[in-house]
């Protein structure tokens, strides 16, 4: 902490936030790390770790949620990519208002939106539990679509028009301009959209439970351990999720905006 005390008094302004971060962000992580490797009596053990990787239920849950999240992310991308492209590039007069139309539902509480979706789906399908996977994907896509549209829209907006013109002047047809210029330049947008959809849809069990899905994802596992007061196994799952999130963040950091800029210069 001594390092924060510099000669300027201005830098000390961050002390409250630094203390807050240590107390309520760093310490909780250390606490669940401790809980994950101890048993109910506080003895050090690898049992939670072992039971996580040998229990077919937990591993199955993890794989299922990865599968579900991947399908959701791909569908979100397939819908959001052309939408964001058209919004940013078609030269509509009130472009911004149109964009707001697409992301405004984001401000309605997600549980209310899912309730509305559920009503419509039950009229269409009759019995919701007949199509658990389909309903989960629809629900998650409905919930997270704005989070995919927004970063893609920004990356299309930043796209330098002269590059597109240069490509077509040099003889590329429209398809090749898209493939060789537009698509590579939108990679940062795709990556940040994917992170904003993939990770939350792996853990948001509320959407699934509201749509009468009985299949579990890690979020619901943590929830069930929480309700059973099993802090140790709940912590173990949290740690596994944290590691997955950490890996995804590391991978996506390599494609962040700076990288995109570098590629533009090259």
């Amino acid at each position: 902490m001594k390092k924060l005390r510099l000669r300027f008094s201005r830098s000390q302004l961050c002390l409250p936030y630094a203390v807050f971060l240590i107390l309520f962000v760093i310490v909780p992580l250390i606490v669940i790390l401790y809980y994950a490797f101890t048993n109910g009596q506080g003895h050090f053990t690898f049992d939670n770790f072992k039971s996580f990787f040998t229990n077919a239920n937990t591993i199955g849950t993890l794989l299922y949620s990865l599968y579900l999240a991947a399908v959701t992310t791909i569908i979100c991308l397939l819908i959001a990519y052309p939408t964001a492209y058209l919004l940013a590039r078609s030269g509509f007069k009130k472009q911004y208002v149109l964009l707001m139309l697409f992301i405004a539902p984001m401000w309605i509480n997600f549980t209310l939106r899912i309730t509305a979706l559920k009503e419509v789906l039950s009229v269409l399908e009759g019995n919701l539990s007949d199509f658990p996977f389909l309903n989960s994907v629809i629900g998650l896509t409905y919930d997270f679509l704005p989070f995919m549209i927004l970063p893609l829209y920004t990356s299309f907006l930043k796209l330098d028009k002269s590059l597109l013109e240069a490509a077509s002047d040099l003889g590329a047809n429209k398809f090749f301009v898209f493939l060789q210029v537009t698509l590579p330049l939108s990679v940062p947008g795709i990556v940040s959209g994917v992170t904003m959809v993939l990770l939350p849809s792996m853990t948001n069990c509320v959407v699934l439970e509201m749509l009468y899905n009985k299949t579990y994802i890690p979020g619901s596992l943590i929830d069930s351990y929480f309700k059973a007061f099993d802090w140790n196994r709940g912590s173990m799952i949290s740690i596994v999720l944290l590691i997955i999130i950490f890996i995804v963040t590391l991978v996506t950091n390599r494609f962040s905006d700076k990288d995109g800029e570098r590629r533009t210069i090259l």
Partner: protein
Amino acid sequence: MKKALSCVWLAIVLLLIYIPIIIIAVYSFTDAKMVGGSIGGVSLDNYATLFKNEGLRDMIIGTVILALGSALISTILATLGALGAHYSKRVPKALIDIANRVPVVNADVVTGFSLCVLLIIILGISKDSYIPLVIGHVVLCTPFVYLSIIPKLKQLDNNLYEAALDLGATPAQALFKIVLPQLIPGIISGFMLAVTLSLDDYFITTYTKPATFNTISTYVYNATKGNQTEVKTALWALSTLIFLIVVIFVVVTNVLSMKKEKNKREKIS
């Protein structure tokens, strides 16, 4: 032709997004008990229930107070933090940036669970004191406010602060009268973001809230499990009301920004 095609695509996506919301809005003005069920006639009963039913009313007021309160605390913390970090040396700034990123990328379930274990299980703070709930929401919101202030600080002209000092201002005066006003847009958008995040949160709330307290998310989740039709249809009204507020907000901010631009253009010409 191309424009027509793109219009069709955008219209289809918009339709898919809005069909559930609009159907619920239409049904909220009728006495129907379920979507697709028989409609007896137009009625405002659902809206009346929203204000008469004590549980619903308390829940709405509680959610709003919690959102505004935690957004306010988050904004103050983040503003101080961002200012301090901006003027700190590289290492402490990097450390704060990294710690700040943790709740942003972390899953809400994990954040909520870990806070619950620390505050309630280890430290033994009672959930009924609302302290864990408020801390949870502040942990959720502050990093995003911090992230929306930092870019504004980077654009800042450092000479202005120095000039203020040269002209006799104390460092505190220079900070509050020169630096802070320039950060206002970032602070306001951060505050708005914090309110939205707090309103939309489910996981941190369930893990830290007192048993008798509910926010919209936890209330709706519990209500869809039971069969209380009165509450269920009143929630349609709530969703419609929120939607109307959002629409009005979007329209007003658009009109205001257009007016501003017009004024600017007139001034230039």
